[in-house]
């Protein structure tokens, strides 16, 4: 069978499963009893096995199969999770990742059998890895499982699973009472769907459809929408008005495949009242007429227990169940790029239309109105397309906890990573690019930042070093902070190193402020690591971090305090392709300045200019602002005479600001950034170009490079 057409889907899903396995195994290490995790791992391993088998990747299938076996034992309570096991499992994931990488590259899984891992997995199953206490633990967990399994039918554990506990709202109650008065049967049904069922919602739908043929569903618990969205455990309850008997109803429900069983009985309106009154109602299952035996207790106690335990135990946790299935479409990123380009073209066409209308003098009220409408449509369209391109930064961050765990072992330090804002969304292209710089910063924190355990103890810091990553949106940009509570940066050490490396002369160094010293770290070819370790020797220096971030039109800075820790702050623009810009004229030429980098626009009289160190500055509301004459920077002639008032655009970068002298303001415009292409890269002043309404090209000034 030719399965190549499924290859990309397979790879996508395999990556998702691997990530979920990674996450869950990491969680499991912290919380070996977490049955949710175990189930999730089992499910992922099982799906991967199936996928690999279908695609004909037998080695991958074998490995995932063995992994699944281990978790099947874990689920059954035969094995307890141990830290050695986690190591083996992670190795196993790496091996699977290896297969996936091979497949990505040449559609072949490779020939590595990973016998050692398979053996290690087998050892785990045979108990070689587990210590002597394992059997006892087994017994304990088994007992626990059966305990909770036994208590499962007790409705107190999970109030949603029994029709007898459905709370009626007044309107439903009225309907039911009327129906009862008409002599109809009011029946309660609780449906149990098999745990192996993949399409719970579909089964639920079939049950609904079957019942609706013979009666009317008045109440369902959880509600219909949640059932459609699979927001329910494997059980749901209904209250039905029907002419049929309860046996007939049960038969209809059970005829739907993958329904494990159902409980069906008279729905007692008064009993329901009693339920409302009594806080802990325990209608003994035996007492009520239940044609179907309580099903979840019998066939497989372990999974039943797994369900009950978290529900009863971890009170604060959200309800157990599969996460909501996303209603998504997978789209090739190239198609989005095409769409984005078309939107760009549309915006250029719109700008042309505006300028054509202005020059040809047809701009009466009606035309203007329509153009404004067009403008709002294109802006909305642009925003929507941008949103489609936005993905949560999560996909990049996911690999970091694992990395820190590995670093803990290789570096022999104790560290913990906390991350917030994983759901912060950024343009797909930015997310793809930002992974390496972030990884470098985290490694940096782990390697250089966090001190050794002894030093931490001396300094009175907690034993476990904290590394954090916060991502959040701030206006039109996204900020990512990476930091640690470690050693901080020793400005003096940086300075002497810089002199040693010839980055600065001793004379220059003497003049540097502490902040400027720290900035030297971003200088190419600078590494303060005393010895090259595996971590710091990866070839990516801070200068690469900086250039990468800057290539994404972002900026990176660092705040540090010696002995307390350091924080790296990366600020990136939300969008890349289309920005709001201020159009200006310098000499005879038109330039665009991104609005984000503009603080204000000032009229400055030449008499306000002061000279400091032979450079022109102005005093702008108390802060001394250097003045740059753009015509000099851009090698062109200003059209203004020196006596005229100057138009000064105040641009900012971080907490610095400069004034850029221009000749004329044209106004604000939405512009599409086009790359300048090769040959023109040499010009650091220009970050790109844009096409104006009349087809003319305006260059986009990168104000950051002027500072």
């Amino acid at each position, binding site marked *: 069978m030719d399965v190549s057409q499924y290859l990309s889907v397979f790879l996508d899903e395999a990556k998702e499963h691997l990530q979920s396995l990674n996450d869950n195994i990491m969680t499991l290490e912290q919380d070996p009893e977490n049955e949710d995790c175990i189930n999730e791992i089992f499910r992922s391993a099982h799906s991967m096995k199936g996928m690999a088998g279908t695609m004909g990747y037998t080695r991958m299938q074998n490995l995932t199969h063995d992994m699944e076996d281990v978790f099947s034992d874990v689920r059954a309570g035969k094995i307890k999770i141990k830290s050695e096991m986690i190591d083996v499992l992670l190795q196993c994931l790496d091996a699977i990742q290896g297969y996936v990488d091979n497949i990505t590259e040449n559609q072949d899984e490779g020939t590595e059998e990973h016998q050692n891992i398979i053996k290690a997995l087998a050892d785990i199953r045979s108990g070689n890895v587990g210590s002597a206490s394992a059997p006892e633990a087994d017994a304990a967990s088994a007992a626990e499982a059966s305990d909770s399994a036994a208590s499962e039918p007790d409705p107190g554990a999970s109030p949603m699973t029994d029709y007898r506990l459905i709370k009626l709202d007044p309107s439903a109650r009225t309907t039911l009472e009327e129906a009862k008065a008409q002599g109809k049967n009011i029946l309660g049904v609780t449906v149990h769907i098999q745990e192996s069922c993949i399409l719970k919602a579909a089964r639920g739908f079939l049950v609904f459809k079957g019942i609706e043929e013979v009666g009317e569903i008045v109440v369902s618990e959880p509600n219909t929408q949640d059932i459609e969205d699979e927001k329910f455990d494997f059980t749901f309850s209904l209250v039905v008005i029907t002419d049929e008997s309860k046996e007939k109803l049960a038969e209809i429900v059970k005829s739907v495949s993958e329904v494990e069983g159902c409980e069906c009985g008279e729905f007692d309106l008064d009993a329901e009242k009693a339920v409302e009154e009594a806080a802990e109602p325990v209608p003994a299952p035996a007492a009520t007429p239940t044609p179907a035996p309580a099903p979840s207790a019998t066939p497989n106690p372990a999974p039943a227990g797994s369900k009950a335990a978290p529900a009863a135990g971890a009170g604060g946790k959200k309800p157990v169940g599969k996460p909501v299935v996303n209603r998504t479409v997978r789209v090739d990123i190239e198609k989005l790029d095409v769409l984005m380009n078309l939107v760009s073209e549309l915006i250029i066409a719109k700008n042309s239309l505006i300028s054509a209308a202005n020059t040809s003098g047809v701009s009466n009220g009606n035309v203007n109105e329509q153009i404004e409408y067009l403008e709002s449509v294109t802006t909305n369209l642009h925003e929507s397309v941008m949103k489609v391109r936005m993905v949560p930064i999560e996909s990049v961050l996911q690999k970091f906890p694992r990395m820190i765990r590995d670093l803990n072992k290789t570096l022999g330090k104790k560290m913990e990573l906390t991350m917030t804002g994983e759901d912060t969304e950024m343009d797909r292209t930015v997310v793809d690019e930002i992974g390496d710089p972030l990884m470098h910063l985290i490694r940096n924190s782990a390697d250089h930042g966090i001190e050794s355990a002894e030093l931490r103890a001396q300094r009175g810091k907690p034993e476990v070093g904290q590394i954090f990553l916060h991502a959040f949106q701030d206006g039109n940009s996204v900020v990512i902070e990476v930091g640690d509570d470690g050693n901080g940066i020793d400005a003096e050490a940086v300075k002497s190193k810089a002199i040693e490396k010839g980055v600065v002369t001793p004379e220059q160094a003497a003049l540097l402020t502490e902040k400027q010293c720290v900035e030297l770290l971003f200088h190419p070819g600078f590494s303060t690591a005393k010895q090259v370790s595996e971590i710091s020797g990866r070839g990516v220096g801070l200068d690469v971090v900086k250039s990468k971030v800057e290539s994404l039109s972002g900026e990176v800075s660092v705040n540090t305090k010696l002995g307390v820790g350091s924080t790296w702050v990366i600020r990136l623009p939300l969008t890349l392709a289309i920005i709001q810009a201020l159009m200006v004229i310098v000499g005879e030429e038109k330039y665009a300045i991104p609005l984000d980098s503009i603080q204000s626009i000032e009229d400055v009289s030449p008499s306000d200019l002061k000279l400091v160190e032979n450079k022109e500055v102005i005093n702008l509301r108390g802060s001394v602002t250097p003045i740059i004459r753009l015509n000099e920077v851009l*090698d062109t002639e200003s059209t203004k005479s020196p006596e005229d008032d100057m138009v000064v655009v105040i641009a900012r970068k971080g907490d610095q600001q400069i004034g850029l002298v221009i000749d004329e303001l044209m106004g604000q415009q939405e512009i599409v950034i*086009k790359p300048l292409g090769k040959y023109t890269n040499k010009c*650091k002043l220009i970050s790109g170009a844009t096409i104006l309404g009349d087809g003319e090209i305006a260059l986009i000034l990168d104000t950051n490079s002027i500072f």
Partner: protein
Amino acid sequence: MNEIQEVKEKAEKGELIQYIVIKIDDEQYGINIKFIDNIVRMQQITRVPKVDAFLKGVINIRGEIVPVMSVRMKMGLSEDVITGASRIIILKTDTGDLVGIIVDQVNQVLTLDEKDIEKVRYDDKKGQSNVSFVSGVGHYDGGLVSILDLDAVVSEKESKEKASNAS
């Protein structure tokens, strides 16, 4: 009919190559047609500051920003004199990038058989300033035409002579 077919066949075999013949200064050059994306009239070129002198700026070709360079300056000849006959030839490089070059005039399309082209391998050191931009010389009824070595033309380096003069 037959003749056309013959030409087609030969073209498919790569024996016949079509060249656009252009004039720069007083010399005729041929450019392999497969590298030519478009030929446009002279238009407003947007200057880019702080780049090499031979780079005249950028133009807008169907919504794409395309750099335009002066072959004359690259070859170390005098500054371009823009006339009504001046054209910008848009070349498509192997990497798919577009680059425009300014030429004084576009003369004709010439079909040359491979055997009519004489490869030249001048010793760069004693050759003339523009030698490194020519990969061969084609013979045709009307005379000779130098075949432009486009890799050398669109490379980011300036002409060797200029570089050595500067140093």
